[in-house]
């Protein structure tokens, strides 16, 4: 008997679920209750994935999508964080810009894709810009709210020790914003990937989104499912990377949730 909730039991349970899904899916197709044309079939997908992994095409497309996602994420996060601090620091700028920022923030940013494709072409830059346009605002708002939520009592306590504003910023304001920034980063990573894929689906020559659009255009269900699996693996990988980084940097907070 395995201990309930132990690591090995968890994995066994999860594999059982996977096996069930594959079995039912494959079985329904084999007995003819489901059509391969519409839902493909697990073994076909695995076969296609294996072929793709051995060829260079999948790596190229995955690489392009990752470059777009990571560059958009990093540039957007950096600019958004700096802008968030700036806005919290200069009240006037906040007052003047707030309605416009909220306006753009409320806009579904993928709607900007056609514009970016016109401006920056069908290559990598337009996807990076799209990712930036999403990530920037999330970090801007999270950082701003983080600064607003700094515990005034902590600030006062350190001030009465005779600390100059610079010291208060470095030792109190910055560290207390980090959880806010991180929660922004975690959402942003997933949304940056979404932005790249959507951009690629609209107009591109490379990338996983391009693969999806092409497969869909040729009614290649197996191809679509294969790309979806690659995307899911990428998303889980980056999420866990962020969670691990967060755990390291925020160990003073204790347990954080992780998949």
């Amino acid at each position, binding site marked *: 008997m395995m201990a309930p909730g132990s690591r090995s039991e968890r994995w066994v349970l999860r594999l059982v679920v996977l096996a069930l899904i594959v079995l039912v899916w494959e079985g329904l197709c084999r007995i003819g209750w489901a059509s391969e044309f519409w839902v493909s079939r697990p073994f076909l997908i695995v076969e296609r994935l294996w072929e793709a992994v051995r060829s260079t095409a999948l790596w190229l497309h995955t690489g392009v999508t990752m470059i777009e996602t990571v560059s958009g994420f990093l540039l957007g996060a950096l600019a958004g964080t700096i802008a968030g601090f700036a806005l919290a620091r200069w009240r006037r700028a906040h007052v003047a810009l707030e309605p416009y920022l909220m306006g753009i923030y409320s806009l579904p940013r993928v709607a900007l894709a056609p514009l970016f494709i016109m401006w920056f072409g069908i290559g990598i830059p337009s996807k990076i810009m799209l990712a930036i346009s999403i990530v920037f605002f999330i970090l801007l708002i999270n950082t701003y709210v983080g600064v607003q939520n700094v515990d005034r*009592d902590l600030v*006062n*306590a350190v001030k*009465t020790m*005779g*600390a100059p504003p610079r010291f208060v910023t470095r*030792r109190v304001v910055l560290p207390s914003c*980090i959880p806010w920034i991180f929660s922004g980063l975690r959402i942003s990573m997933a949304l940056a990937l979404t932005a790249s894929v959507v951009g690629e689906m609209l107009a591109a020559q490379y990338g996983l989104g391009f693969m999806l659009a092409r497969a869909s255009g040729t009614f290649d269900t197996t191809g679509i499912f294969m790309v979806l699996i690659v995307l899911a693996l990428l998303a889980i990988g980056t999420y866990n990377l962020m969670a691990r980084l967060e755990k390291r940097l925020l160990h003073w*907070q204790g347990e954080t949730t992780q998949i």
Partner: protein
Amino acid sequence: MPPKVTVSGLSIAFGPTRALDRVSLTVNDGEFVSIVGPSGCGKSTMLNVIAGLLPPSEGGTSVAGIEGNGGGSRIGYMFQKDTLLPWATALDNICLPMDVKGARDSHKARALMQLVDLTGFEGHYPRQLSGGMRKRVQLARLLAQDPEVLLMDEPFGALDAQTRLIIQEEFLKIWERQRKTVLFVTHDLQEAIALSDKVVLISARPGRVKATYAVDLPRPRRVDQVLAHPRFTALFQEIWASLKQEVLAAREKPT
């Protein structure tokens, strides 16, 4: 010798509400003064003004003969709320006031950890410490700052009764050795009498100095023995009779 802390004709108004009304008091060097009064009488507000966190509406305060908070780190402030940095270890929290001055001395910090009986917890984060331990870290941090005046705003108010008694004992022992000037705000009249040289009673809002009582109990004191002292009982009854009126008066006023 001039008084260490002077509050002269201090009034504070928040909009139409007058919190403090022409309060004057002095604290001599090395004196332990407690301030008691009903909730909302402006006790904490007064400490905030002395600390320079809040501007006075009228009148003023001075520390060591200098207007305002005296500048630099002359004043050490211990809040009722936990004000330890949650992202810093106990040791780093104690070092904080030394970091402000740009002179970190981890030997001194370790000695202070020992003084407050927390050796072995240097690397713990605040969330890993009990309420009583966090108070002791704050006490050590206050001592690390080595200020001329300690302002304490119900520092032990949030602790359970037993832990409070133990911390009061420890604090009293440390204080009687160092004899720093203390201005101590509390709800707890027993605590005020047991620790102080002088108890100042503030009236219901708008807060005015209603009376000042000298606590002529011998030092060094031990909190548990003081509570059984006949002079303590007499003082308690005398001050409580007056304080009770204010507490009742404060209840009748809209807040």
